[in-house]
């Protein structure tokens, strides 16, 4: 089955409801992709609210979007894209059973995830000082602040939900890196690394759509 004669025998790697490694791996992949479909629709509810309210208040959404910090948003996007690349390389390393490189790439991915979260924190703090946080201290120069406030609760809902997913991703990455150090994924069954990779790429794709919608609504 696997190219090299693996020191660990085949059936320890395979859970007992599966017949062989290949069935287990394709089941895990399909399961993950179905889970990602549910995540698409979980974010989808917020995208629907965003679409409806932007079509109702395009003027206010554009004005409100100008108050977001596009520099931090742009850098964050670049960071997530880069960490996605590291993750893909990690999956490649796992398949080629290169343990050292796998561990470093996973730690690298988690590291850039943490940088993303730090920048996110900085941005949220800036929004707080600019009085842009709905409900708590929302102040708006022009009269009628209701509609910009709708933009900002959508902004915080979408980026907040995404941030939670990034945090979960970082934790998963660190756990997998730790297990990889114990030679868990370089003996033929690297499915967990692949699944973590799919999840991380999904989190990256969500941000790819969030960046233009929230930071570049209308033109700057």
């Amino acid at each position, binding site marked *: 089955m*696997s*190219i090299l004669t693996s020191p660990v025998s085949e059936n320890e790697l395979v859970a007992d409801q599966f*017949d062989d490694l*290949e*069935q287990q*791996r*394709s089941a895990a*992949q*399909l399961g993950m*992709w*179905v889970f*990602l*479909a*549910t*995540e*698409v*629709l979980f974010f*989808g509810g917020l*995208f*629907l609210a965003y*679409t*409806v309210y932007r*079509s*109702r208040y395009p003027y206010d959404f554009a004005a409100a979007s100008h108050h977001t910090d*596009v520099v931090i948003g*742009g850098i964050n*996007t*670049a960071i997530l*894209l*880069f960490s*996605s*690349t590291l*993750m*893909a*390389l990690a999956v*490649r390393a796992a*398949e*080629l059973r290169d343990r050292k490189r796998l561990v470093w790439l996973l730690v690298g991915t988690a590291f850039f995830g943490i940088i993303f979260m730090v920048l996110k924190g900085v941005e949220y703090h800036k929004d707080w000082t600019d009085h842009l946080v709905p409900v708590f201290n929302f102040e708006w120069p022009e009269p009628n602040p209701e509609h910009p406030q709708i933009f900002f609760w959508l902004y915080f809902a979408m980026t907040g939900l995404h941030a939670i997913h990034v945090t979960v991703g970082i934790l998963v990455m660190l756990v997998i890196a730790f297990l990889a150090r114990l030679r868990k994924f370089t003996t033929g069954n690297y499915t967990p690394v692949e699944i973590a*990779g*799919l999840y991380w*790429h*999904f989190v*990256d*794709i969500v941000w*790819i*759509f969030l*960046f*233009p*919608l929230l*930071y*570049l*609504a*209308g*033109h*700057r």
Partner: protein
Amino acid sequence: METTNASPTQTHPVKVYWKTCAALMLLLALTWSVGYVDLGLFNLIVAMAISITKALVVALFFMHIKGSSRLLHLAATVGIIWLLIMLTLTLSDYFTRGWVPLNH
């Protein structure tokens, strides 16, 4: 058992990964710069088009959709298709609200 045709090794040479990364960074720069040009309604359309291409690049190369089984292709797209169903049918209500004059 359904014959699983997920190819045993899906790895590409390292060069491919960095080229993909470069493409993504380029598309990001494009999104960012287009954001400063006033195209009115087209701003949204262009931004979405670029984002879709970026998402496709990530899905095809990093998530190994390219060369994987038709079943995974379907599983990958079904979420987006249902999101589009929700968007289009809901917006069909919002965009046609004024068409029947309620009180004249």
